[in-house]
């Protein structure tokens, strides 16, 4: 890492001058110029679609800019070449990791760092170097593990190691915490501090204000492809940054107290067996009533997904009883759950929530294409379907070219609005919201919260599964913690304590007896 030590703090290491890029009629970047200094964390703040990722993809050579130039360490960077960017000392941690799942950590790291035309791969030396970097920067990960077997947090460490292994002196992190648990985010911030202390310069792309305030020294705000402001982070408040980012004041969600109604769902001692002899859910008791929001807190991978599957009709209980609106639910039947009035906002909107390559209209009628008015004489009435999706687009303020647009091309926030629109249209009695605001920008988060609260007011019961503690504390009437498939007794709003919930998320207060769960 000796080369990292060169230079003085405050030296300009990277300069972007007049970067512009259009996709068709959309100006993704419009004359963006800024400088990055050695040893600083520069936050690039902006809503989804503001052009942050496009800008970084230009910097890293994935895209070629229509105009402007990039100067790294005093030398102009040839456009459109990731290799040139890497050689100039620019490393990028992509939002969607660029790792090969079936290969080992070490394989993923060393690829491309040695001449392709050699008869041997560097084995031991590379392993040692990775171990050293991992120890130096708190990026512990088993070099021989298959990527597919790693947690999301570990995969991100591999991405960072990839950059450091190549002696990156400028590190770009694109929405690095979007997929991390709060604990993993803390670990990441600690790593970033160590990197900056070694003289790296970091560009931190985010739309999470508290993170920007916590890690960065300087913040630049992008809006609709243009740089609309920049300031020292010191002294800034969340409200300042939010208004700069969105361009208008942001109201906080208001939860009005209201009495819960009759019981909608009851789980009694529900166990769901998993593969490898461990139970995905272990003797779970849960009760949800009309007009209340029950929050489920927990570190991801502790059974939340299975709980959501159970109530979506994608998984069946192996033991215990599930009662929904007075009926006992036996086999897993997703269509029946929809008919019973369950609205589902799935955790993974790309893979489960929408079919990316199909149109908005097709996606909007996906749950009910066999029913009136979309099906007439066993034929789909496309006029009715289009009207329906047009209604959702208008009613939920979805920014898109029209109902014929391909779902994949929408931003995350607009996808989530579509899903909300589809589910709310069925007037669901029970709403299952799994990570409903993950990866969304402030505007969209506010919108989702508003909709959930409106549904609560209407009398729907909402099961809110989230890793975002702030979100749970703001919206929930009661919160239960899930840990290794076990669900705690819920605590009521008056008793909410961040410390207590945090401890429980780490396993305090849970029985540790059941076998087979690896930590």
């Amino acid at each position, binding site marked *: 890492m000796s080369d990292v030590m060169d230079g003085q703090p405050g030296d300009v290491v990277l300069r972007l001058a007049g970067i512009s890029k259009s996709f068709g009629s959309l100006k993704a970047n419009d004359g963006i110029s800024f400088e990055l200094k050695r040893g600083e964390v520069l936050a690039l703040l902006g809503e989804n679609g503001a052009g942050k990722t496009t800008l970084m993809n230009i910097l890293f050579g994935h895209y070629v800019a229509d105009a402007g130039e990039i100067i790294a360490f005093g030398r102009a960077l040839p456009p459109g070449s990731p290799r040139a960017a890497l050689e100039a000392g620019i490393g990028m941690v992509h939002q969607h990791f660029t790792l090969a799942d079936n290969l080992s950590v070490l394989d993923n790291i060393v*690829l491309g760092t040695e001449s392709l035309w050699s008869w041997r791969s560097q084995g031991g030396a590379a392993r040692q170097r990775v171990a050293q970097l991992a120890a130096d920067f708190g990026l512990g990960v088993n070099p021989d593990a298959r990527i597919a077997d790693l947690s999301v947090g570990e995969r991100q460490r591999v991405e960072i190691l990839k950059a450091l292994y190549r002696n990156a002196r400028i590190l770009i992190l694109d929405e690095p915490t979007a997929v991390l648990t709060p604990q993993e985010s803390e670990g990441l911030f600690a790593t970033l501090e160590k990197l900056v202390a070694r003289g790296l310069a970091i560009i931190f792309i985010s739309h999470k204000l508290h993170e920007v305030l916590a890690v960065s020294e300087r913040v630049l705000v992008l809006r609709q492809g243009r740089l609309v402001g920049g300031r020292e982070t010191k002294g800034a408040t969340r409200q300042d940054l939010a208004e700069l980012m969105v361009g208008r004041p942001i109201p906080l969600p208001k939860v009005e107290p209201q009495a819960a109604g009759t019981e909608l769902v009851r789980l009694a001692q529900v166990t769901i067996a998993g593969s490898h002899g461990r139970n995905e859910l272990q003797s779970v008791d849960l009760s949800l009533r009309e007009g209340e929001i029950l929050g489920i807190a927990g570190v991801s991978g502790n059974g939340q997904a299975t709980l959501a599957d159970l109530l979506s009709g994608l998984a069946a209980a192996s033991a215990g009883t599930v009662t929904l609106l007075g009926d006992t639910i036996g086999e897993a039947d997703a269509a029946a759950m929809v008919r019973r009035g369950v609205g589902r906002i799935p955790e993974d909107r790309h893979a489960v929530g929408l079919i990316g390559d199909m149109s908005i209209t097709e996606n909007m009628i996906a749950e009910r294409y066999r029913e009136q008015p979309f099906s007439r004489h066993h034929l789909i009435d496309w006029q009715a379907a289009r009207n329906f999706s047009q209604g959702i687009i208008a009613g939920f303020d979805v920014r898109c070219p029209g109902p014929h647009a391909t779902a994949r091309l929408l931003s995350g926030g607009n996808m989530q609005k579509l899903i909300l629109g589809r589910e709310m249209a069925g007037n669901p009695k029970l709403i299952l919201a799994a990570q409903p605001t993950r990866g969304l920008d402030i505007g969209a988060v506010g919108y989702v919260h508003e909709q959930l609260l409106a549904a609560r007011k209407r009398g729907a019961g909402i099961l809110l599964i989230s890793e975002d503690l702030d979100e749970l504390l703001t919206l929930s009437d009661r919160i239960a913690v899930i840990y290794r498939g076990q669900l705690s007794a819920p605590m009521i709003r008056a008793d909410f304590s961040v410390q207590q919930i945090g401890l429980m998320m780490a396993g305090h207060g849970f029985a540790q007896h059941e076998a087979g769960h690896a930590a």
Partner: protein
Amino acid sequence: MAALEIIFTASLWAAALRIASPLIFATLGELICERAGVLNLGIEGIMTVGAFTGWFTVYMGGDLWVGVAVAAASGAAFGLLHALLVVPLGLSQHVTGIGITLLATSLTSYVYRVSLPEVTSPPKIEPFQPLAIPGLSEIPFLGQALFNQTPLTYLAFISVALVAYILYRTPVGLAVRMVGENPAAVEAQGIDVTLLRIGAVMVGSAFMALGGAFLTMSAFNSFYFDMVNGRSWIAIALVVFGSWRPGKALLGAILFAAFDAYQLRLQQIVAGIPYQFFLMLPYILSILALVTMARRAGYPRALMIPYRKGER
């Protein structure tokens, strides 16, 4: 019991290796393409091209090994065509592959007819002769079964070891495996996805052509139309059977060839059953083997997905 005794004859296994050789080349070729994320259904046509160009080179007075080199080069050329269409242009790999097969097959017959207008019966060449490995070929049973083959059979086995070594032990092998898993990861490490895939498809296609050349230059001594006769499709199945691993694919090729050699001998001693049933045997067995093996197969994740730079 004569049916069982066949299994213990060296001649059965010698025949099995002979029958396996073109399959090994072809399977290896398809495996390399698919490991890089490109399905190559041009294989049947590319094998035909290899069979013709190798044989024709020798017929025109070239050395046998020059014929082998010409076959490999012509295979690589068709591989390049396939790769250009499916990698940078991102066309459908199925359709393009079938198109390559049709083009290569008919181009071969055209060139054959134009070059040899007067010929009625297929002209013959002096093919590769069995090469007894000194010492090893003296070993009872094994010597006759394994070490008294033509040079191209030895080359097939050496190729498996070589390809396995390159795939698992060298940087370029890692890059090829990675580009079949996640091209974006390769791109992010500064390696050109397009060039890497084109290169892999060319090398793979050269191997396919060697499989064809084996037929005209080692197994037989002349070129017939339709002589590849679906062997390439078996090779595609063998890639799946071998879970995209050279060693396991080799095993599959030998297994299939052994059944084929076995049914040929069985036909002669079992009376009263139409020979077509015996012909079916290896195929039925390979379907059964595929059903059991393919369930666990970890296919390259990016197989058949065109990569476009910068697209999410």
